């Protein structure tokens, strides 16, 4: 194939030739049907490669990974190395427990209201037009209580946690808060939209989960 373009054909297909090299390649291609056909086929191969879909492993690999990193099943925070040892004081554990209890209660109440299986309280007869629908407001109120509690714990522990981690968590919370605000605004316009209700709930869940984990992070030694 020396009389043909050889490796320069791939460079041509990739657009990696310029100047004299490009002009020479184009001149050759103009008179060589074999190289033109090869170039067309190589473009097809490249196109197929770029369009490949990812496929998950045929079995769940996580259990093997969890075993190797020492993650006990169901445990959220595990000690990795001495510098990462979980150190949470008793008052903090108690406070976190209170918050988790509130969190669980709010989830239960929210599930009832947002999934439409419960009856909304009869109070709050004349809600202003700018307020959230009653079932959403009730759920949001439950979430807010748990969120306030966890934010308080996080604020109290601010100085003893890794500053980089805290900055990342705070940045994430700002984005999540923005998503919550947008979901609430959308619900004002379309209160019974199941997608929006589910989206708001899942976003609130995400915030709670993030706060809960952040509140339980190990102290920086």
């Amino acid at each position, binding site marked *: 194939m020396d009389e043909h373009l050889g490796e320069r054909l791939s460079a041509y297909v990739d657009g990696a030739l310029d100047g004299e090299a490009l002009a020479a390649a184009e001149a050759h291609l103009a008179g060589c049907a074999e190289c033109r056909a090869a170039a067309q086929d190589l473009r097809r191969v490249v196109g197929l490669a770029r369009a490949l879909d990812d496929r998950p*492993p045929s079995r769940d690999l996580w259990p093997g990974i969890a075993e190797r990193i020492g993650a006990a099943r169901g445990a959220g925070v595990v000690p990795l190395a001495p510098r990462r040892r979980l150190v949470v004081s008793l008052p903090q554990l108690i406070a976190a427990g209170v918050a988790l209890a509130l969190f669980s209660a709010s989830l239960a109440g929210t599930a009832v209201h947002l999934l439409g299986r419960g009856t909304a309280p009869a109070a709050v007869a004349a809600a202003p037009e700018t307020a959230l629908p009653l079932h959403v407001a009730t759920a949001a109120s439950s979430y807010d209580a748990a969120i306030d509690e966890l934010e308080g714990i996080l604020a109290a522990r601010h100085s003893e946690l890794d500053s980089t*981690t805290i900055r990342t968590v705070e940045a994430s919370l700002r984005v999540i808060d923005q*998503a919550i605000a947008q979901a609430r605004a959308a619900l004002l316009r379309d209160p019974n939209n199941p997608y929006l209700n589910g989206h708001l709930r899942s976003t609130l869940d995400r915030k709670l989960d993030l706060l809960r984990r952040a509140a339980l992070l190990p102290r920086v030694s």
Partner: protein
Amino acid sequence: MRIESAAGDASEAADVALAAAGDSQAFERLYRRHAARTHSLVRRMLGAEADADEVTQDVFVRAWEKLGTFRGEAAFGTWLHRLAVNVALNWRKSAARSRRRFDEETPTEVLAGRQDRGAERMDLEEAIRRLPPGARQVFVLHDVEGFRHEEIAGLMGVTEGTSKAQLHRARMLLRGYLGS
């Protein structure tokens, strides 16, 4: 949706931070999010499903161990996939599973490729699997993953010229395998 995308990025950054602090559940979420992409990369690099399972696990164990060094200059996915490339390449070397040197590949495999011309066409995944190791790795890194020859040369410890030659070789073999 933009909101979901933004929230997803933020939650991934949070999971990275939490996992770096020792939160295995946050790390499991990262695994779930990146398992398919990582496994596909490793499987294509190695050309074997069973080996890919083992090496993918190695990648995530290494990621867990090295998360403290991740500073967020690049996206977590980019960092993870570069780590996966390194683990896959080192796995072949350290286990001496590749008995041929990079530049000494297998006339028999090339011949097999030629014999496939005119036979039943195969899909690209199967065709990639049948490539000689060096050509396969360069093809996957360049054409599937989007690495540049300069990067590939650094990762694989070869010259850019070798990378370009192997890429062309891989493409021409694939052309034959696919019955173009």
